């Protein structure tokens, strides 16, 4: 993939695929290919969302935890 795969672009791709599939203009072979890609997109998105959810939950749990001396190292 040339450009970075982001959640949003993937989700958009998925949406596009769904729309194309629903349009009924695709050949069966195309449909299958699209479907395959759509499934991958869906999988990626869901996995990304799952990871994100876990991360946020962790962060929120962490914020009620111990002192963090230097929390801004990701900005450096």
């Amino acid at each position: 993939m040339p450009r970075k795969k982001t959640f949003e672009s993937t989700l958009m791709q998925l949406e596009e695929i769904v729309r194309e599939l629903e349009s009924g203009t695709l050949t069966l072979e195309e449909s299958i290919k699209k479907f395959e890609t759509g499934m991958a997109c869906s999988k990626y998105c869901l996995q990304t969302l799952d990871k994100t959810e876990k991360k946020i939950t962790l962060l929120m749990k962490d914020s009620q935890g111990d002192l963090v001396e230097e929390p801004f190292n990701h900005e450096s």
Partner: protein
Amino acid sequence: MNSKNSPQIYTVSGLTRQLKQLIESTYPFVWLTGEISNLSRPASGHCYFSLKDDGALINGVMFRNQLKRMPFNPENGMRITGMGRLSLYEPRGNYQIIFEHMAPDGAGLLHAKFELLKKQLAAEGLFDKSHKSTLPFLPLKISIITSPTGAVVRDIIQVSQRRFSGIHLEVVPVKVQGDGAETDIEQAIETVNKCATSQVIIVARGGGSLEDLAAFNSERVARAVFASSIPVVSAVGHETDFTICDFVSDLRAPTPSAAAELVLPERKKLHRDIITYENALETALKRGLKHLKTQVKTLNSRLKNPRSRVDDLRMRLEDLEKRLTGRMQGQLKAHGERLSWYTNALYAASPLRRVSEQKETCRFLHRQLVQSMVSTLTSARSKIHENHSKLGALSPLAVLHRGYSITRTRDSKQKIITDSTTTKNGDSVEVLLSKGRLICQVEKQYAQKENI
């Protein structure tokens, strides 16, 4: 030259002037006795007369001022003795005597002598104030030169003791009248001066006629008084009588008892004065002290105790500290509130919800994806089925069920044989039956319409 040989010639005026100078300088004062004649008293009040004796006559004048002091009125024929100065009146060329004083002969002579002496001594300066010494404030010893008997000495002693009892009074007995009185008094003054123990001399005598007082009018007594280094108080006669001694003395007392009063301060009064001064001292000082005390106390009460200032400052300080801590705590609280607000907002804006929404979207899309795939497939399948069944219905082989059969070549063309002539004997043909097929060999061909 002329003046040497020729006689000197005077002018009338010149001569008269020289005569006037000669006369007036030679006889500044003359005593003259004679009989008054040609007396006239014009309106001017002056008195013009001639004084004559057996052999001569001289013009005289007495001016109004002198006349006033005369104890008698001059009359024609009166024999008088007078004192005056000679004067030449140039316009008339006559001379006259201008009387200062005159008296009828007899008493008059004595009086005239008195006046003469008085004038002489005055001219000598014996009466000058500059020679008079002041009396001591409080003499310790007083010499009284007087007759030891009589009222005079008694009066003086009495008054003295009344005024100031603790004083030494020394009586110096003298004759005060008649022959030897002059000498007595003179010597007494000298003696007292010689002793030099007294601080004041009182020369005293009662009143009397001019003759009685002759000693006190004598030049010797006058000079003795003048020479005394001890102050002399003269107390001669009564009130109005003045003697030469009175004039020369350092102080004249009108009466002997007055002399005692003049010489001695009153002891009681002195004591009273001193006590008064003492009290004044105390009062003044105490008043001063009281004033100062009041001043100090007033200042002391105004001396502001800085304690109140300390209290004020304490209150101010407390206020400042309260504001300081209040403000700091307030700021902390405000910061805390703001932080908690934003923190809450952050939590609220956390991507968690978005994640779940996205998840939902994802799942939805997934479902859509599958569904549309499934429906695509389903519709394809149904389309196929439809056509398949249509195809089945249209099958050209359906006639076979009725007993027909179809014969085809067995070559690749599978050409249906509808004309028997197209076949040759021995050709293998395929016969399609309702059920199954037959592979047959052509044996014989028949022409058209012959088969029925």
